[in-house]
């Protein structure tokens, strides 16, 4: 049997004193960039019940971001919305499934993903360590903002009810859910699965699998850069965003997760600021984090907080 995972695992990650100031500065920079949203109907993917669009908007550094946008053909004047965030290697899916449940759904392709790679494309593997010695140019600085700007896009749509927006994703999508819920007060409910990008420095010791192994590769090649790497990652670690989360949130983890160590899931949960929070640890599960059982819980959670039938 695999070893037991400690629920009281203590992460070594500490929050920099200027963490909030760093991100406020980034937000100021992006506020100066017009969203310039565009929607292009996608007849090939549209059916009687679901309308599908390709979406584009501007983000940090003027990078043009692509996304898929789905909405139920028959909907109320104002509908709740789900922001769906992708895994590390996943090609962002067309979120028809969410639309079938009554939500308007936006599935973002942050920079470097397919359809958002013309101006920025460090590749896979590589994204995780691209400019990792400099927080002002680290890959995830823009990548995080690209996801947050998805909220701005949703707010720009007249058919979206701005008081009923949720965010969800698994793996990297789980990590992005954490920082999005922390940085965007418009989020009313968040569901994060097997969150990646949480406890980076713990993860690279707890596991030796890709994608986290990219950091070990980098440090083996550039051992003198370790202090700079550690400094940078502290600004991007979901553990340091967690105390900003105030919306209801659920998290599911697999206790045999070979990609995102479950210890980091516990550390994350313990740091989340929201009072309405719940962790679902699934024994006997890896990076799927119990998805087969948990998806019904996620559906119920969003139905409770976003009321798609209203």
């Amino acid at each position, binding site marked *: 049997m*695999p*070893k037991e*995972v400690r629920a009281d695992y203590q992460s070594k990650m500490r929050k920099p004193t200027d963490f909030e100031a760093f991100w406020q500065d980034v937000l100021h920079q992006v506020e100066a960039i017009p969203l310039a949203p565009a929607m292009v109907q996608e*007849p*090939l*993917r549209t*059916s009687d019940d679901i309308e599908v669009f390709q979406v584009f908007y501007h983000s940090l550094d003027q990078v043009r971001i692509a996304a898929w946008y789905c909405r139920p053909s028959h909907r109320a004047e104002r509908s709740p919305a789900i922001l769906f965030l992708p895994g*590390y*290697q*996943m*090609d962002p*899916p*067309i979120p*028809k*499934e969410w639309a*079938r449940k009554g939500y308007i759904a936006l599935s973002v392709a942050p920079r470097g993903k*397919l*359809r958002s790679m013309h101006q920025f494309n460090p*590749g*896979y*593997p590589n994204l995780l360590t691209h400019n990792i010695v400099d927080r002002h140019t680290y890959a995830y600085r823009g990548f995080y903002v690209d996801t947050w700007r998805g909220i701005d896009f949703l707010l720009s749509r007249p058919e979206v009810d701005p008081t009923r927006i949720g965010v969800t994703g698994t793996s990297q999508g789980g990590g992005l859910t954490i920082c999005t819920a922390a940085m965007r007060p418009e989020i009313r409910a968040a569901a994060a699965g097997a969150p990646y990008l949480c406890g980076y420095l713990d993860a690279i010791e*707890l*596991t*030796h*699998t*890709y*994608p986290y*192994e990219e950091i070990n*590769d*980098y440090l*083996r*090649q550039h051992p003198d850069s370790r202090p700079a790497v550690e400094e940078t990652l502290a600004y991007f670690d979901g553990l340091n965003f967690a105390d900003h989360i105030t919306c209801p949130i659920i998290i599911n983890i*697999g*206790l*045999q*997760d*070979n*990609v995102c*160590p*479950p210890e980091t899931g516990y550390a994350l949960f313990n740091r989340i600021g929201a009072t309405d929070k719940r962790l679902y640890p699934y024994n*006997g*599960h*890896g*990076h*799927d984090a119990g*998805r*087969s*059982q948990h998806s019904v819980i996620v559906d119920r959670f969003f139905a409770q907080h976003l009321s798609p039938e209203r």
Partner: protein
Amino acid sequence: MDSKPADFAQYWQRTLDDLAGFPVRPELELLPLRTTDFATLYSVRLTSLGPYRLFGYLSIPTGTGPFPAIYYAPKYQSVLEIIPQGTANLQRSAYITFALAGRGQRNSDTPYAAMFPGLLTEGIEQAETYIFRGLAADSIRGLEFLLAQRELDPSRVVVVGNDLALITAALRPGATHVVATPALFYRTAELAPKTQAYPLEEINDYLRAFPATAAAVRRTLAYYDLQTFTPRVKATTLLMAGAPGALLDAQALAPLVTALPGPVTVHESEQSSYKDGLYAEQWMAERCGIADVLRILPEHWR
């Protein structure tokens, strides 16, 4: 059920003959960033049908071989992984691994960049121009390249992947074992309407948008149906089936099992990437004579 086209054998022989007309011309480049004390990693560029230049990652264990090998055939996603996400990096200490990006995937995306979704229906109206004719050739070319590595033990070569793994093993000798998770080409025309999930939803989208092409699409898919390939697969096979009730569960795949002439094991998904992944890792290790499998498993599986 898709019926076997009368010229099935000729179609694939022509593909193999065309492929043989293009020398592999491999270029290997050491990648120090991904090289460890237990394995050396190379980027590989090689030529496939077209001609089309492809990209792959080749990892060679430290020490004296010969080593067993795992060939990660092109996946249905844009990203090419060195080894699959979540696999212990130490797998590279025990096996030669080779992962290939088929045409359209990242690093093999010049001149053709695939879209996901989109790849499954690219050129689907004509079997001769269907993108998967090239992708099957790519996958075969990858196996040929791997088999030519001097450190490789030809008695222990595992091909891992989706439908392309089985198609490759059917069309090119050399694979001793196959771990296949059918997803694209098993009774596709019949099963796609029963799901709304991608990638098979791509077929539904296409036929909804272009209903007049239905007969042509069905004709093309018939050249790719796994049931027609399986009698040619001589390798020992592990079929990874969906969980009971899934579109491609063990019951649905039963005809494939019957048609495979070599030894077959079916693993029905336990809806746990840990349990399913562990099963596949142990299955490969056992058949490749790797005694200490624990050593090459992810930490949280040990």
